Each structure stands twice: as C-alpha cells, then as structure tokens.
C-alpha cells in the first residue's frame, strides 16, 4: 500500500503551483472574471504548455494517458489556485469521447490545447437527475435531430464542441432511451445564452432547435447511453472532489494564518480555545475528505461499476459535508473580513459551495450510495 505521489506527479503539481503563483494570483484572477471574455486565453495556453490538457488524453491521441490519481493532483492545484478556466469542462467532455473510444481527432485537439469542450447534460426540471432528460433526439435519414434546452452548462459558450445527452425513446425519467452525442457548438439551430456564475465561472443555457447531426455524432448505441453518461459524470465528480480538496487546503491555510495574526483583546484570536477546537474540527474534516477523494480516484477505474458508483457517491457526499463545514467556519473565523469579496477566503467559500451543488449535491449522492444493491445486501 502506498500513498505517496510519484516524482512525475509531484513535479506536475509544483509546476502548476508556480504558474498559479506567478500568473494566476488573486488580482489577476479578479481581472479575468471582470473581463468580457470571462476566461483567459493566455492561461489556457499555459495549461496546454504545462501538459495539463494532454495529461488525461491517451498516448495514442498525443496525450500522457494520465490516471485519475494523476488528475487528482492537477485538480487539487487548480482548486488551490481557484482557476476558473474551461479546464474541468473540457476534460469532462473529453472523457466521454475517451470512454466511447471515438472521435480521436477531437481528443488530439484537446491534448494540444486547440479545442475547448463542454458537457451539456443538465436540464431545468432535472435538478440532480442525469437521466431526467426532455431534450429529444429523433433519427432521420441524415442522422439525428436534436430539440431541447440544456441549462447551466459550465463554459458552454466557450466550447467548440459539445457533449449532449438527449432522449431517443422512453419517458422523461427513464434511464433507457438515452443517447449521447458530440457536436459542433456552432451548428445551425444552436443558440447559447451566456452568464456569470456566482463563483466567477462562465456558464450558458443552450437551446437546440432542430439541430441536424450526422450519424457519426452518436457516441454509443442509440438509446443505450446511460452507462456511459453515469461513468463520465463519475469521472467529473471525482475531479470536483479533488478540486474541493485543493480549495479546502487553501481556505484552511488562510484561516489558520488569520487566527495566528489577527489580534483581539490583546492576543491572537487563535489563542481562544473555542476557535482552536473549531480549527481542529476543520482539520479532521479535511483529512477525512482527503481520504475519500483518494479512494474515489482509485476506485474510479474499478471494473465493478457498482463499486465505482458507491465510492464516487460516498466521496461526493462526504466532501460536500466537509466543504460546507470548512467553508462556513472559515468565513465565520475571518469575522467581518470573511463576508467581503476582498479576501481569497470568500471566493474559496463560494467555489466550495457551488462544487457541492454541481453534478449532484450531498443528498443526491447519499441517496445514490444507499440505492446501490450492496448497501442492503451487506445486511
């Protein structure tokens, strides 16, 4: 059993951290958020040059065939730096192509940094249910026609290619009848409405109006997309968990530093036992969360899909709990400064909060954990 990072992983993390410190610090990030584009082309170039985009892509497509553990290292660093570029969106979308073993040319473009992607999976009525899909895909002579609206698509307006889940058959909440497509984000009939998210990202609602796709756009057998959809999103959840660890490490360090320097009643506030124990509890939350992020990354590639679902959902639920506690308490311990937008801690808190609500919240993943047959079978 070995919990150490490889030398390559450590070097990757160090390089990313140095880049964040130099070119993606708090002030620079603030300017990017306030800019019209809301993302930074130069940051994207840097991520590509650092190899972060090639990392998850198979070697055959010009990547490094990085594992989920490798990605855990990357996402922690991006979380620590609160990097709001379309990295997660792109990597998540690319995972669907990898899992489907299709569209190698797009993976090559992702690896080289030429292509940004996004996964358009969510719909308004669905809340956290991935299978709750009203967007339709009807087959015709030329391929498929897509109609519907996808909401809160992270970096949906930046993406050159989209992964879209749509319904080929069945009722709105059936897991059967789901199809997955990859398509040009500028195809005729697509309109995108962009907006900011409260944690500084860009997102979009995307309307599909009689969008004609070729047959090659279909990723797996028509109507049988559910296992792929779940597997791809479990990958996304694992990335978010890793990101959350990075954000929590950073907000924890900032809070600890604040407790050591901020004076009240003539002493550093870190001398008050109630605040000390609060920090001790945050420390324990962080360590337990870290264990679960690790476990999820390890089990993600499990051949037993139930084992994967069970572990990934356990991790998201546990990390959601930790993220809420650590975020809220970090703000509380920062006092008045914690509720202003002026310190990084506030932005970390917002990001942690939105991670909890993304790709299934704590309650959703707790229910999914319980729904795995093993939960009751063990009894």
């Amino acid at each position, binding site marked *: 059993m070995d919990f150490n990072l490889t030398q390559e992983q450590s070097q990757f993390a160090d390089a990313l951290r140095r880049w964040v410190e130099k070119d993606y610090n708090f002030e620079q990030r603030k300017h990017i958020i306030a800019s019209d584009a809301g993302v930074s082309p130069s940051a994207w170039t840097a991520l590509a040059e650092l190899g972060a985009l090639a990392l998850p892509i198979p070697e055959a497509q010009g990547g490094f065939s990085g594992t989920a553990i490798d990605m855990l290292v990357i996402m922690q660093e991006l979380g620590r730096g609160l990097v709001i570029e379309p990295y997660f969106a792109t990597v998540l979308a690319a995972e669907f192509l990898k899992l489907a073993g299709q569209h190698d040319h797009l993976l090559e473009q992702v690896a080289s940094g030429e292509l940004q992607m996004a996964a358009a999976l*969510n719909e*308004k*009525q*669905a*809340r*956290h*249910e991935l299978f*709750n899909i009203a967007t339709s895909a009807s087959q015709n002579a030329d391929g498929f026609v897509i109609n519907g609206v996808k*909401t*809160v698509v992270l970096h949906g307006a930046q993406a050159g290619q989209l992964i879209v889940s749509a319904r080929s058959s069945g009722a709105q*909440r059936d897991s059967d009848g789901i199809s997955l497509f990859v398509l040009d984000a500028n195809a005729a009939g697509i309109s995108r*409405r962009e*907006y*900011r*998210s*409260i*944690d500084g*990202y860009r*997102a979009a*609602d995307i309307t599909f109006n009689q969008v004609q796709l070729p047959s090659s756009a279909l990723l797996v057998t028509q109507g049988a997309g559910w296992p792929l959809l779940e597997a791809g999103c479990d990958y996304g959840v694992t990335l978010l968990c890793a990101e959350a660890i990075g954000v929590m490490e950073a907000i924890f360090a900032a809070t600890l530093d604040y407790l050591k320097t*901020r*004076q*009240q*009643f003539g002493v550093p506030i870190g001398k*008050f036992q*109630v*605040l000390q124990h609060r920090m001790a509890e945050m420390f324990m939350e962080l360590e337990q969360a870290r264990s679960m992020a690790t476990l999820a990354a390890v089990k993600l590639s499990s051949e037993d899909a139930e084992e994967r679902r069970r572990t990934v959902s356990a991790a998201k639920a546990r990390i959601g709990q930790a993220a809420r506690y650590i975020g*809220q308490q970090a*703000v*509380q311990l920062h*006092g*008045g400064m*914690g*509720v*202003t*937008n*002026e310190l990084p801690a*506030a932005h970390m*808190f*917002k990001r942690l*909060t*939105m991670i909890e*609500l*993304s790709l299934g*919240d704590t*309650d959703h993943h*707790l*229910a999914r954990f319980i729904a795995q047959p093993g939960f009751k079978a063990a009894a």
Partner: protein
Amino acid sequence: MDLNYNTEDLSFRDQVRSYLETNLPADLKHKVLQHKRLHKEDYVRWHKILAKQGWVATGWPTEFGGTGWSATRRHIFEEECARAGTPPILPFGVAMVAPVIMAFGNQAQKDYFLPRILNCDDWWCQGYSEPGSGSDLASIKTRAERVNSLEGDHYVVNGQKTWTTLAQHADMIFCLVRTDTGVRKQEGISFLLIDMKTPGITVRPIIMLDEDHEVNEVFFDNVKVPVQNLIGDENKGWTYAKYLLGHERTNIAAVGRAKRELQFLKRYASEQQKNAASLLSDPIYASKVAVLEIELMALEITVLRVISQDSGRPGPEASLLKIKGTEIQQRLTELMMEAAGPYSLPFDAAFLDGESEHSIVGDDDAAPLASYYFNYRKTSIYGGSNEIQKNIITQMILGL
C-alpha cells in the same frame, strides 16, 4: 399561563394588518418578497409612509412622537410588517442614535434631531467599528481633539471607521471617538454626531460576498465637528454605547421574517422535483424543513417568554435570541439554495438590482438565492458574533 393575545391586542393586530394591506406599495412588497436588493429610495419611501401614520418609532415614548406601545404590541407590529413584506425601518436613526439622544442628549439636540429622524430627513449611519477592533469594540483609535477657535469650539476628528452600513447614502454618522488616550480603553471615549458632508470625510465601499455594496469604510481627515454635536459628557461615550447595544437587540430573533421565509421555502421547494415528486415530499428534504420549522416554533415561544418577562430593556437572554434567530435565518437560506440546486449558480446582478424584470435564466425565484445565502453568513458575525454572544451567556447567565 395563557398563550393567546387578549381582545384588544387582537383588534390591534387586525388594524395593523388592514393598514398594511392598504398602504404597503405593491412594488416594494414585491421586491422584499422576491429577495431583491433594496435601494435608498425604497427605504425612504416606506419610512415616510409609516411616519405619516405615526408608526415609525415603535420603541419611543409618545412625548417624542413614538407609539408608546407595549412590548407585546411592538411584537405584533413587527410580526405583521414581516408577514406583509415591508422594507425594514433602518435602525441607525430610529432605534440606535435616537434612544441615546433621548437619554443623554441636550434639549437642543432632542428638538433638532428627533423630528428629523422620525421623518427620515436625515439618513443615519453608525461609526463604531474600526479596522482591528472587531469584537473588541472599546479598542477605538479614531481621535477627536478639542480646539478653541473664533467661530466656536470644535473637535478635530482623525481616524477610520469600518463596516459602516449604507454610509454611501448617509447624511449623518454617530461616532465613538477617543478624546482621552491616557486612561483605560473604556474611558476616554466620547459620542459625537457628525455631518457626512463635512470636508475631510471619505467613504470607500466594501463589496460583500454577494457583490452587493452594503458596507463601507469611512475615513476622517481633520474633520471639524462643532462641540454642540457632542452627546452628554466628554469621555462618557462608552456608557452611552453600552446603553445602545442593549437597544440594538430588539427584534433580533426576527421570527416574523423567518416565518415568511419559511413559507417561501415551502412554496419554492414544492415546485421543485425530486424522484418524480415535489421536493417538499422527499422525506430527507421534508425532514430538514420540519426540523427548522419546529426550531422556529420554539423560538417564537421563547421570544414571547422573554417579552412577557421584559421589564424594559432586554437582558442577556437577547444573546440566545440573537444566536437562534441567526441560525434559523442562515438555515433558511441554506435550504433555499439546496432546493434551487444547480440553478443557484447563475449570477444576475441586473435582475437583483431591479434593472431587468426577469432573470436571465428565467427562474426568478431561484435567481437571488445563492446571493441571499452568501449575504446571510454575516448575521452570525455582526452585532456581536455568535461566539461573543455565547461568552455573554456564559458570564451573565451561567456565571462561569
């Protein structure tokens, strides 16, 4: 033991309710119920409407134009306002500086300021906190030096205040300033009223978590304040400030508003779907709402118990009300955001500010919820953090 209002109180409640039905402008009500940002003119408009009715100053005696209501009637009035969705009457004038002026001000100060407060002719703000003071309120560094001059004696004020709520709109600020540095920190503090238009005052916004402009830093650079604006005696300001801190906790539990927000939460959750049913039907979610509702039921009775024992000013029980009240408020916003789920993410400042009728993603209920959640994290910090409130309970009630 009798938990019912008497007949007179009940008819008072009906009177307030029907008054509010007639006089609360629909646009203001809508803004409040939809969690939109309120602007200066919204506050002033509602203040002046209530002033016409004579109902602004519910905590003042009648001789100064207050209502002279009992604690029970004030509670009923606050409940009804919360239920109807009125904008708040900001506390800085009516509930904070006015009681100090009444108790410690001279006749000229009473005659000049109190009617202007009643009618919202001046927008007041509070100059207590300073950078670094935090929970240690008495550690004030802003200096006021008395200077004799031909035009009349005045103070020269230098220093900085912070967390000054809505100072960007203010005409007046009441300040704690240090007039004697050679004594222990609670002594040597004076209570000054300062015109915000005086040269040397600069206001710098502090942007909150939710990107709203709610508080400010206020800088004083050789600001001349006439000695006529000193309240009571020089160096006795800490006494007046402590007097005011008690008043500040009136209605701190905010049960009325929490009841209204609980209704919003239930309505909103009942419109969201989970497992092909309403989210409010989901056992896990319903259970969280029920726990919160029961906590609020309990708090309402706790408030009424405190009111019924109240001989005048709230005692250390106010700390309990503050802690439980803010915990409930924060939990309400938390459950609202959970109900909105991924729809919490879109940030639509134009909609919150009333510049667009509908939110960009089309869910007007959801649009303000994450902002609301983030904004309300302040409630367990301001007005004496909840940790400080527990210290008060520990010392004043438990004697530890």
